[in-house]
């Protein structure tokens, strides 16, 4: 079963690549830690996209070449990065004013659960022995206009992550715009989850079986 799941659907890089197609030219973008970071590798040639990292940099570039590292030039994941020409540094309140003041166009995040009304849970399982840690996730979903989620469709143990209502503590209410899973691209609509694109070889029914809420089929005209 697990090997079958690995064969079917998009890889991490393919999910990132698919999401990157939807980043418009000229956007100011914040990428979350993990698979969302890969999106920067795949934005189509010819688009100028400016990356924001909430610890205080606009115009973040790729990881440094060997010998070019500066331990005081990092991203929100605390990894060393570089700057592109035209970059700027600023303090934390200005950085979060960019987020909370709705100046960032697109944010790409991971998810633990997404509900059919767009609620997102991605910071805590609510387990009593867990150390709660939220970082900037609640600020991003409250302040950024377009929230893309990249996530495996199901958990490692096969449970649905797309559900009717989140059981984990929320990061934000009705905030998700679009989901890129390993199986499909799914939009959040007033009618709930709508499948707009299927990964190669994946059927609508296959996705529905692995989703904890009702899907509508919006793939008319696209190849499955």
């Amino acid at each position, binding site marked *: 079963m697990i090997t079958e799941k690995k064969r079917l659907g998009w890889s991490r890089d393919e999910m990132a690549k698919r999401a990157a197609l939807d980043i418009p030219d000229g956007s100011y973008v914040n990428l979350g830690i993990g698979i969302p970071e890969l999106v920067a590798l795949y934005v189509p040639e010819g688009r100028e996209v400016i990356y924001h990292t909430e610890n205080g940099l606009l115009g973040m570039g790729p990881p440094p070449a060997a010998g070019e590292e500066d331990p005081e030039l990092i991203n929100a994941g605390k990894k060393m990065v570089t700057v592109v020409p035209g970059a700027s540094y600023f303090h*934390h309140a200005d950085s979060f004013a960019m987020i*909370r003041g709705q100046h960032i166009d697109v944010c790409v995040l991971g998810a633990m659960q997404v509900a059919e009304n767009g609620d997102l849970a991605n910071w805590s399982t609510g387990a009593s022995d867990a150390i709660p840690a939220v*970082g900037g996730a609640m600020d991003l979903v409250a302040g950024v206009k377009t929230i893309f989620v990249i996530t495996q469709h199901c958990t490692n143990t096969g449970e649905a992550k797309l559900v009717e209502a989140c059981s984990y503590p929320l990061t934000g209410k009705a905030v998700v715009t679009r989901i890129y899973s390993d199986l499909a691209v799914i939009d959040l609509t007033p009618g709930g989850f709508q499948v707009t694109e299927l990964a190669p070889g994946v059927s609508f029914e296959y996705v529905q079986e692995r989703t904890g809420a009702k899907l509508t089929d919006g793939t008319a005209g696209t190849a499955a």
Partner: protein
Amino acid sequence: MINKSVGSPAEAVADIFDGATVMIGGFGEVGSPIELIHALIDLGARNLTVVNNNTGSGHVGLAALIENGQVGKMICSYPRTTNSLVFPELYRSGRIELELVPQGTLAERIRAGGAGIPAFFTATSVGTPLAEGKELRSFEGRDYVMEYGLKADFALIKCERADRHGNLVYHKTARNFAPIMAMAARTTIVQTGSLVELGDIDPEVVITPGIFVNRLVTVCDPAQESKLIAEGRCYP
């Protein structure tokens, strides 16, 4: 004559008292004023409330301050990082209090505290457990939660260059919380990589104006937290 420069980290932190609220700059180790923190460990002030984005790593810097039993409460957004060993253990055994604040709300609370704003409304955390028990209001059809400005008795921060008036310039993303913490503390204590003559810092590039700074100590070659951790070092 105004000269905010003092002779040593020990002298700079000497009046931090038991029960004080202390803001400490840094995002992880980047921007962390590690020599000032170590001086505070030497001083031994206890029952501190510490404001920082994280809770330190390994057994040096902020983690060592916590491990030394000097911190009663942490106000932070992300108390869980690589090599964060000390805080989780104390938290699980109920020996340290945690006030968890979304990162942007934390920054804005500090900024507000420094700007004389006692409280403000934000959309961040509405509908989540972190808004529970807080006042909600609706503006232009959207719900917002009330958050309080945050002030401190002391701020400990790090910069790259300073002059004797306390005008500061930072290095890259090490700036992070320092400028707003400098505004929000009654006494702001700075460790600077170098002290330059008045006028050497172009007024156009001053990031923190000297009015927000009380004391400066020069630490030419500050320790790097991750290097100390890699070497297995502990403080004291």
